């Protein structure tokens, strides 16, 4: 199970916070940020021992892209490299949906990022890992949304 997915920037500003269990969210974001931030880029992407989240069964798996950290907090049922892959899939999907995604996209379209994430991870479980499928579903939903919005303004 994935317990939480956090995206924050190099300054610890949260860009996406998605908890799959009710928690003391803000503290966890802060703690995770401090844990992740002090790590070099060239060391491994796994981190154990956050005191607030989970306990010994949980670890943080993160990737650092330019100004953003993507952190997944997972338990031992998830494969570490699998999750690293998943982060990549998520980011690539964001890239496709936003066309060259950058932090600003995440800042201003947090809702959309959530919708995209919902197609990848659902309730802490991995829903889909095939990027084409994810993008197709998101586009279909966007079309549906557009078809709903247009008549109102027409």
């Amino acid at each position, binding site marked *: 199970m994935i317990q939480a997915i956090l995206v924050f920037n190099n300054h610890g500003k949260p860009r996406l916070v998605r908890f799959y269990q009710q928690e003391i969210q803000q503290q966890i974001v802060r703690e995770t940020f401090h844990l992740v931030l002090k790590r070099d880029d060239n*060391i491994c992407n796994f981190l154990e021992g956050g005191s607030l989240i989970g306990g010994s069964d949980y670890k943080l798996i993160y990737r650092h892209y330019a100004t953003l950290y993507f952190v997944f907090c997972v338990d031992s049922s998830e494969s570490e490299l699998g999750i690293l892959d998943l982060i990549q899939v998520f980011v690539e999907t964001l890239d496709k949906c936003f066309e060259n995604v950058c932090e600003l996209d995440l800042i201003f379209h947090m809702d959309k990022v959530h919708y995209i994430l919902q197609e990848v991870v659902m309730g802490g479980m991995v829903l889909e890992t095939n990027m084409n499928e994810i993008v197709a579903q998101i586009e279909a939903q966007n079309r549906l949304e557009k078809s709903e919005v247009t008549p109102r303004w027409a």
Partner: protein
Amino acid sequence: MALKMVKGSIDRMFDKNLQDLVRGIRNHKEDEAKYISQCIDEIKQELKQDNIAVKANAVCKLTYLQMLGYDISWAAFNIIEVMSASKFTFKRIGYLAASQCFHEGTDVIMLTTNQIRKDLSSPSQYDTGVALTGLSCFVTPDLARDLANDIMTLMSHTKPYIRKKAVLIMYKVFLKYPESLRPAFPRLKEKLEDPDPGVQSAAVNVICELARRNPKNYLSLAPLFFKLMTSSTNNWVLIKIIKLFGALTPLEPRLGKKLIEPLTNLIHSHLGSLGARMRLVLPAPRSSGSGCRPGLALCVQAPKPVRALKYLGLLAMSKILRTHPKSVQAHKDLVLQCLDDKDESIRLRALDLLYGMVSKKNLVEIVKKLMSHVDKAEGTTYRDELLTKIIDICSQCNYQHITNFQWYISVLVELTRLEGTRHGHLIAAQMLDVAIRVKAIRKFAVSQMSALLDSAHLVASSTQRNGICEVLYAAAWICGEFSEHLQEPHQTLEAMLRPKVTTLPGHIQAVYVQNVVKLYASILQQKEQAAEPEAAQDVTQLMVDRLPQFVQSADLEVQERASCILQLVKHIQKLQAKDVPVAEEVSALFAGELNPVAPKAQKKVPVPEGLDLDAWINEPPSDSESEDEKPKAIFHEEEPRPAKPRQPEADEEELARRREARKQEQANNPFYIKSSPSPQKRYQDMPGVEHIPVVQIDLSVPLKVPGKYLLEKDRKKKKKKDKEKKGKPRRHSSLHTESDEDIAPAQQVDIVTEEMPENALPSDEDDKDPNDPYRALDIDLDKPLADSEKLPVQKHRNTDTSKSPEKEDVPIVEKKVKKPKKKEKKHREKEREKREKGKEQKEVRPRLFPATWGLPLRLPCHVCSSAWLTGPASQATCLLSRPSLCHSLQGTTGRKSLTVNPDLVGLFQKSSKHRKKKHKKEKEERSKDKKKSKKKKPPSDEAAEPVENGALDEDPLPVRGTSLASHGPETYDIQGSLQKDSQVTVSVVLENQSSSFLKSMELNVLDSLNTKLARPEGSSVHDGVPVPFQLPPGISNEAQFVFTIQSIVMAQKLKGTLSFIAKNDEGSTHEKLDFKLHFSCTSYLVTTPCYSDAFAKLLESGDLSMSSIKVDGISMSFQNLLAKICFHHHFSGKRWGVALNACAVGEKSVSVDGKCSDSTLLSNVLEEMRATLAKC
């Protein structure tokens, strides 16, 4: 209206949307909070408007604010409003907000049930999808219960997009509503073979999560997963499956061997990408054990180039270590190298590994290496980690690897140089433990400790709690307790009385004070023996001079002890002035030796019979309670320890009296103390030093048996350890509890010593005990999933009924008791346990039998197809009987029936194993019956024979004929015939008892309006149905006939004829045999697995009519009776459900209650039951 809409739209144009909000926040960096509170006010206004678009926009903004840490729970209701918008755009916003901020405590969540249900059944797949996604985040037990069925339906939705979401969410539903697992599982299993890879992957995902908690229930799926593993190309699925196998292999060792090949194949086929390979290798070791040795080598070598892989390699090694320590130990150097890595994650992993790699030989080397790292390490977390690891490594398995305890003490002393650690108490505990348990080391330990006390100023510089100064606690205690080993006691005494000591934390000072006296006592003795009264007086003077500094302490404990001791010393001074020898008496204060007591000892104290710990001893004083707690709280804040000793002091006399009494009670019991298990464990559960299991035992009577048990145990545990390890436990009497850490435990010990005896016997309990917390946890985690856990819930009702005949007086209480955990059962008397067991078996049976054993057919539900012969046909016997167990057929009543229960399938297989045996029995019984019937009906030796079909051997109940249940679960229906609704299959066994050869058999039945024989197409009502075989003499065979049923509420009797040609030497004759088929109502009933609450709900629903019967004069045992009746239990369904409940009313009478949606059906069923019962 239209105007309003327009107005709304215009309003909306001026509203801020999410982007504006974000922009605004970014523009107000200085007064962000103020700006946001302003925005929240605006949002509140927007939420008040009718326009759903405005509301949705507001909710969307709230979602953003929630991320920033603002509470938006106040808007929960508005969120629900937006969720119920008809447009997907808004709905999506609503569900997103809900998923972000709803949790189990959100009260409005219960308002969403219907909305969600509506969305789930929406024609738009995205409405459904968004509802599923949202629900997955905030599903509560209530929601899960109410929506489980809807979600289950969605699992077979036409769109894979919905299917995969529905499958995935089922896991959440299972967690919240465990009862849903059983009914949903078959469908979940189906989804493993779904054509869509996404759905497949979701199903694998869910089952992996389930299996992780409770692998044993999923072993049966292994072949399926094996197939998937070899066929799937989806990496994600592969990973999950391998993880799953990782959990399964420990339970089924053969699996490991099987896996080796496909796994190696996988590894090789992924050679291209190292990453993929690693991913596979990682979970593999556990699963395939030795098979992955080559993989292991890869793991170890891989770490060098890539960081992530290095980490994973170490992780893999730690997993392999558990099973194959040797193969990992070979890589010790590599692991030690990893300690130098700059990545903390890797260092921590390496440390973890080292723990498992140490042996007697390399311990010193490894610890040395670690010590050097301690010096180098930056950052307290890592250094603390190192410190705990060193201690863990050394103390693991009861100091198994330590050969030289002097070395270990030195290591500990060296560790005290560590500044800023939080683990001072760990070191202290180790010092105490070693000094107490390893007798031979005491001298050395004391010398080291006195040195430590001497240089206390170094250690005590940081006075933070749990800091390194904690070691002074241990040092002072050891020096005091074992003062006879001190080289220069006087110097140590002075060190302990330095003014600087008063800066130490209170609890340490208290130990100082107490041990100063011990030290003082031993010095006095020395001086008096050496006949140096003056020196003795000097020491006393020193005490009198220095103790006042403690008397002024702010710490209550210190103050009290100090003033007490000060008075004592002053008294001694007076005596000394009169030249009275005092040393003997003073040292008598501290006579006796302390023994280690197992930390779990307290827990193990069995509760004496008849003692109810929860019962009030006196009536609870209503007001004083709060008063009592107050002082406690105060003490706790200051210092947790004083609180305990205080109370005993208050009425020590009384306690002593009680102790005495208890001691005498148990005087006959042998007693022992067992050694404490490995210390590191102990410290995990214990908050602090005060729990050090070292206690001065407060006994005025010397106890006889000096703990042989301990010795034995020690020997076992430390077989290879040098002699010094074996602490010889001895108990002496002592009048007072002395050193201050003893005071609290003294209480405990009292109990422990007394209770230990009973513990001595069940040594297995000892084994269980350490695991207890984990086990309990395990159960908790498993609870949602374990089948075994579920049954109790279900059986509920039966329990009651089965129970009552045996013990009529307490049926209700018993029922309640049932619920609590298994643990409680343990405490019950054996008798009761037996009964429980019996009960459980019984409870299980009712559900299983109907499905598998066909037991019910001995019941009232038989279709009495008593075939009797008329006419001259004298040589053939027609036997209409119930076929063998598995061939039991099932009639149906127009309900789509349920999916197969995995359990039942399992049992079913079992039952088929037994089939052969049963067959034999059947035959025997049959023949018996035949004989009987022959006697009974001499006139026609061709009477239809009742056939016993028995599941219960003890009381064969003649059943003549058959009918049965449903077209339901395909699994049971081996013949796989009737899958159509409203059909009943009747199996008829025809046995030729004559010497003629029977052929051209045809069966015909006079159809009624309600029940019609299904004939081959094109044939008329008067045509018979041919029996598809011929019967040579003495042979029996089974034929099946299908009947179509219109209504099930009434029993039916059909007349029929079997015509056949009997051929023998004398020629052939055409003969006829008439019979009657009796379709009873009960025979239409279908067993439906039903979960307790669904059942309860059904019963509560009120649309069932109720009726009951009472039958007197029952002579058969209730068990048998119940076995019969149990067939009727768990009948439930939405429309045609019948719920029956039987309970014994008295010795000889039984009452049966039933509920059913159709009262006619019910009354008929009950009538039939009455008939059966009457026969009993």
